């Protein structure tokens, strides 16, 4: 190995354990984030399997404190099981953020690749659209949308995707612009590759890690938006479970029935924390791939 690689192996090594487990442990953020995510996913599936319908109401057991009447997390004003609701709400948050990140990343990357690669008038037009999008505060967009369409999971996903694609486009555009100048792209052109082939085969893999990092970091924000909008009544509504909705149910009962706000709130924090830890870990890994200086 070269002098640089000898130094860099010494720098990034954290002990004598071998293989992927050691590398994962070396990335404590990533390890913790993945573990937390795993616990939340598995836990929520087990709970929803045991208690399948969180929106079922039992008025006679309304506002039961945690641990009474067979409600480990207590019940809400309509007798709904807070634990079952939290589990289902975690799943909803996960599904919504995964969907939004996927859609906005795909769309944003496509726009960014095209704008960054072709430049010229195409780039100018696309960037003006981006500017337009940025000029609209998301909350206004959601308020306006809520007057036109009925709140539903699907509509929420679409709305959040529309509000969220721009950062991907900008990041991908910048990376594409710098990658496009590298000699191997010119070599690909000389070897007979067309534009589409270069975009898909060479440039898309080049921006993939950036997309991954951005996506995992953004996922936390999506969860917060989903909870916030559902809290305001603009997002997901029963029978679909949302953590934000449950929090809104308990907001006037904070001193008497604290569990209705606090426990779903903790669930939101855990989900966002998991995404952030994963995102930080991925970002650190991407940074480590850069060359180290002697």
């Amino acid at each position, binding site marked *: 190995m*070269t002098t640089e690689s000898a130094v860099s192996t010494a720098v990034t090594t954290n002990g004598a354990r071998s293989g992927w487990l050691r590398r994962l442990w070396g990335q404590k953020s990533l390890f913790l984030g993945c573990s937390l995510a795993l616990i939340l996913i598995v836990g929520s599936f087990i709970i929803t399997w045991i208690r399948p319908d969180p929106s079922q109401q039992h008025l006679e057991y309304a506002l039961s404190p945690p641990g009474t009447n067979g409600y480990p997390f207590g019940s809400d004003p309509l007798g709904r099981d807070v634990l079952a609701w939290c589990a289902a709400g975690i799943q909803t948050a996960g599904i919504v953020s995964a969907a939004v990140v996927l859609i906005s990343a795909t769309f944003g990357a496509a726009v960014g690749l095209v704008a960054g690669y072709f430049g010229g008038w195409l780039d100018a037009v696309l960037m003006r659209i981006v500017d337009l999008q940025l000029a609209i505060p998301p909350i206004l967009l959601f308020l306006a949308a809520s007057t036109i369409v009925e709140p539903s999971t699907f509509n929420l996903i679409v709305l959040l995707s529309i509000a969220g694609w721009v950062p991907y486009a900008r990041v991908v555009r910048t990376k594409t612009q710098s990658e496009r100048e*590298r*000699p*191997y792209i*010119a*070599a*690909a*052109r*000389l*070897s*007979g*590759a*067309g*534009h589409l082939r270069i975009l898909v085969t*060479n440039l898309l*893999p*080049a921006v993939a890690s950036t997309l991954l990092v951005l996506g995992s970091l953004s996922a936390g924000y999506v969860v917060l938006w989903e909870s916030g909008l559902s809290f305001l009544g603009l997002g997901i509504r029963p029978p679909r479970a949302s953590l934000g909705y449950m929090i809104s149910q308990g907001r006037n009962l904070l001193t008497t029935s604290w569990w209705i706000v606090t426990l779903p709130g903790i669930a939101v924090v855990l989900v966002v924390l998991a995404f952030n830890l994963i995102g930080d870990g991925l970002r650190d890994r991407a940074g480590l791939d850069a060359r180290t200086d002697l």
Partner: protein
Amino acid sequence: MSTQTTTTQGLVAEHIGHHYLHSRVSTEVLRDVSLDVAPGRTLAVIGESGAGKSTLARILCGLERPTSGQVLLDGATFRLHRGRVAPVQMVFQNPVGALDPRRTIGHSIALPLRNRPRRERTARVAELLTAVGLEPKHATRRPSRLSGGQLQRVVLARALAARPRVLVCDEPTSALDVSVQAQIINLLLDLQKAEDFACIVVTHDLLVAKVLADDVLLLRHGAVVESATAATFFTAPASEYGQDLMASSVWTHLTKGGS
């Protein structure tokens, strides 16, 4: 100004001019540059940084269209056609950036061979690797596992896969160690003898030009200052600028004499 009779074979550039437009300011990079290189011969384009050499290299490959003038290959106007393998191939200064870091060596070399059946591609890649002095087993490796000199050989192999009529080399050895430089120079000389392509070497290093060139084109601020055979230029440059360049080269006094 050319010192040999223009032939219809090989690469000919006629009155190339080029300028860049940036924020409404036009910068002239090349002015009335003409040259011709016949198959089997090498032209060295020399000059300091800012002389426009790299831009000229890109124009000769067809990667950029000159704002004026034209490039002819074997007598016909030459253009880079999207989707078709170019007859003018390029060797780049920094071999590390010249290969896709996420793909294997074999994949990169086989890029110009995409339309051939798989078995033929693998065989040809092995053949090309051997021709540039590397073992065929390198085909499955990634660029990060190879040294600078080995990577430059791979770049040459890829260029050869396209069976080029012309090879344009932009500072092919400046990023390489002294001993590796010698190997690559020898390789270029050998390959040209075997494949008979016309070769253009763009370099700021006078000695690289001296060992590789049949003819020399000296550029300064985008214009041709001198055009001569290598033998003439390195014995007695006609232009004052050429003489200055020779004098300021730190190598002029060190020779292999002695032991």
